[in-house]
């Protein structure tokens, strides 16, 4: 366990060396937050004050929380593993005495821990100043929200890790990557809240792990669900976590058997 803690800490430090990148990222997240908020707000005004249970203020809160969690949750992923397979550096990872998945997971948690403040806070501050935020006043949603964020970081990590692992079988994963991004962006509730989906798409989304990757922590943090509902949603997240973990471990197991390490 100690090795994974060290890996998480080192990853936190690695990311903290790129402060300019963090500032630029936070700026971008805030600007896109303004664009998304103004689009949603004008839609809601046109619709007469509310869409699918979201008032103007609630919709703005949904946008700003999404923008704040975007980086910490790792919604854009990283192709580090696939790149290391391409370059052959995967040989180094595999000659270490740690579990491959766990070592990358620990490093992703370290990255997320660093991203929370510099990437999360600025969009929330901009949101509070420009549109205002509708946040709950009791501590419960924040506590459960924290657990839910941890689960969502892990789910996003495992999802992208599974796509990365395809590089054990195919040389180029870009196509799979694009497909995953499109499906995930929609079904996770990043573009519009999952609750706005037509019935059939809503049912489909709920049969996938994607809403657990963003919509769930956003809803819990915004206080849209009561305590019991929130707990059930975290339970669903943990269930998906177990499923994805099994899939990823199977992929590592069978994939590393047929992996051809590139280069001399």
């Amino acid at each position, binding site marked *: 366990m*100690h*090795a994974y*803690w*060290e*890996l998480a800490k*080192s990853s936190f*430090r*690695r990311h903290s*060396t790129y402060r300019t990148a963090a500032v630029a990222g936070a700026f971008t997240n805030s600007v896109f937050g303004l664009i998304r908020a103004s689009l949603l707000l004008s839609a809601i005004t046109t619709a007469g004050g509310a869409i699918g249970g979201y008032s103007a203020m609630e919709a703005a809160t949904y946008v700003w929380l999404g923008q704040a969690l975007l980086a910490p949750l790792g919604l854009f992923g990283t192709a580090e593993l696939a790149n290391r397979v391409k370059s*052959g*550096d*995967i*040989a*180094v990872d*595999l*000659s*270490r*005495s*740690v*579990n491959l998945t766990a070592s990358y997971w620990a490093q992703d948690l370290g990255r997320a821990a660093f991203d929370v403040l510099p990437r999360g806070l600025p969009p929330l501050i901009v949101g509070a100043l420009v549109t205002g935020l509708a946040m709950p006043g009791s501590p419960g949603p924040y506590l459960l929200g924290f657990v839910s964020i941890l689960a969502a970081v892990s789910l996003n990590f495992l999802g992208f890790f599974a796509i990365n692992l395809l590089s054990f079988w195919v040389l180029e994963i870009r196509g799979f990557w694009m497909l995953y991004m499109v499906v995930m962006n929609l079904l996770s509730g990043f573009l519009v809240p999952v609750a706005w989906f037509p019935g059939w798409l809503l049912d489909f989304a709920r049969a996938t792990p994607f809403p657990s990757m963003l919509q769930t922590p956003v809803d819990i943090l915004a206080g849209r669900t009561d305590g019991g509902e929130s707990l059930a949603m975290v339970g669903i997240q943990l269930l998906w976590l177990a499923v994805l973990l099994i899939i990823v471990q199977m992929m590592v197991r069978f994939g590393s*058997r*047929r*992996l*051809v*390490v590139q*280069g*001399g």
Partner: protein
Amino acid sequence: MPIIDVEELSREFQVMEPAGRFRRRKKTVHAVRGIDFSVEPGEAVGYIGANGAGKSTTIKMLTGVLVPSSGRVTVCGFNPVPQRKALARKIGVVFGQRSQLWWDLPLQDSYPILGAMHRMPEADWKPRFRELAEQMDLEEFLSTPVRQLSLGQRMRGEVAAALLHRPELVILDEPTIGLDMISKEKLRQFLDAERRENGTTLLLTTHDMSDIQRLCQRVLVVDDGAIAYDGPLTGLADVAGAVRTMVVDLAAPVHSADLFALPDGAVHEGIEAEGIRHSVSFDPRRLSAAAVLAAISSTAEVADLSLHEPDIEHLVRQLYGRARR
């Protein structure tokens, strides 16, 4: 019990090659074909061969990152692929072309992580790290991020990383590639001392004959995926009939080779630079370089000279009497 035991080890790859305008055909490439060898604890073995001979493929199978097509491998008592993590605690691996250090962190930050990965308590890895840092002169750049280190500095860091957990076996895949003479020599001295003091087994691949001469008593020559020679280094030179070449620059041009009274066993190979530069090859077992030089200086004044050792590719080629495809 041998520390490395390899029996009938083979690995083949499927590659696609064009067949006609649109079609592709599967082709099987035999990278390693049925090799056998074993290495005893404390040995220092050079594993040499031309590019593409199958060296790295073998190393990958020994460390458990590549599944053999057939055959049996045992390293430190483990079956490398299924027991890869346990094996990693017993061996140290240096890939000359890759890095096991954390690229964007200061060099010293890599070692606590490695110590933890090998499940070493701080009281155990820290003194060892101090010792390695001192022996390899790492102190002055310990706080420099790895990405800013020179190649020589980084390689010293890599070797220290591979030896932190006092492995029984160290596998080095071209550890001196790209290093200057001084860095190479430092690395060799360190590896040699490490083996003498701790009985560490060394297996290294290299293209540098001096690495082998300084470090290894035994060489394995691999050619086209098969072991072509297994024995002492001196024996290799015997088998291959290795010749050294002396190149001399004369003070005044000499246009005919017949003017030199070369001793038996020395052959005049050629004249360059309008009679100034002459090269003479000779068999070091029959003639000393001094005797060759004396014969030349008796005829003409020598301004400069250099000696060339046969390189590994050359030896292997001579061993086979044919050029590589």
